[in-house]
């Protein structure tokens, strides 16, 4: 399992009703096949606020990952890959 505390940037994110549908990571396009879970974090406001939606999902390319959508910066990051 790979984990990036600060997140690993993904590009060209496509969403529908706020849910990720497709993204590019490490130069490869990954299409979301199923979203297993969605949750929201809002914490550490007294330091540097972390306000993110998290998506645990699988892709048609065989990945099981956790994507994070930063609600403050609108940035999408990949924070975990189960391998």
């Amino acid at each position: 399992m790979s984990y990036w505390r600060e997140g690993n940037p993904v590009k060209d994110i496509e969403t529908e009703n706020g849910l990720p549908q497709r993204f590019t990571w490490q130069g490869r396009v990954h299409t979301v096949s199923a979203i297993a879970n969605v949750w929201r974090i809002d914490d550490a406001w007294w330091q540097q606020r972390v306000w993110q939606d998290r998506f645990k999902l699988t892709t048609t390319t065989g990945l099981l990952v956790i994507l994070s959508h930063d609600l403050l910066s609108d940035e999408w990051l990949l924070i975990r890959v189960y391998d």
Partner: protein
Amino acid sequence: MTEYIELHCHSNFSLCDGASPPEDLVKRAAEMGMPALALTDHDAVYGVVRFAQAAKQYGVRPLFGAELTLDDNAHLTILVASDTGWRNLCALLSIARHNAPKGQAVLPLSILPDYTEGLIALSGCKQGAIPKALLANDWQKTIDTAQQYRDWFGRDRFFIELQQHRLPEDDRLVYKLVQLAQRLDLPYVATNNVHYAKRDASPLQDVLVCIGKGVTLDNSRAMRRPNSEYFLKSAREMATVFAAYPDAVRNTLHIADLCAFELAYGIQDLPVFPTPNDVNAEAYLTSLCQSALALRLPNAPSRVVSGIRTRPRELEI
């Protein structure tokens, strides 16, 4: 148009937990067009007068209740349907307060079935006995507990409570709770376990929890709520969250209709005082006072005694 009424709402009278005063909650409800709002503070009803006054000012129908803490450390959401229900809730809270150190409340579960008339019960937050049993994967205990509450409150007065705060386990828990409701033919209802009127009061709620627990923000992660979703949400927001279970939102209106209790405040509703031969209480008090005059004022001049007898000013107050 979708309508929703929040039935599980804490004010700052849930000490060191609720972050918004009753007035702010009612004002926010009015801004969103919510026709009614319930106040369900932890083991207490001390916020109800301010809540009722604000509700009158903003044109929101007030519903009254509390979140009870039971002796198995489980929570149970209670709403008042009638005058009898109000008396029963007050009795339960008194028993619970007497049964615990100052500032705390613990209601013996064995007491509860004697005081359910006029009350409506919702199965509670994640600290409710039913969600706790479900989260522990104890299906039999879940069923037994739900049946027990159903028997105590009645099939039409006990609701499985669904909450979805965008936490990792919430979707699965809601799904299981709905399964439970369907299996026992019980209705279910959505609530948001509100702890502040707007999202921006979430930091204050965190600080209150830390004060209550005596810990710093850095050391309080397990005690604080993981996000800021515990605010008063609109009908549209709740309908979106519970899109798969529209009855859960609709049933909030049904429950509000069942809550017919109106709080009378300003004039005290004094208990009936038993008097000999059922004589009028005021006349009895006057006769007691007059007969005691000679005892209390043995050396008073007769004109003073006479004056008091003929003009009992204090008794007219």
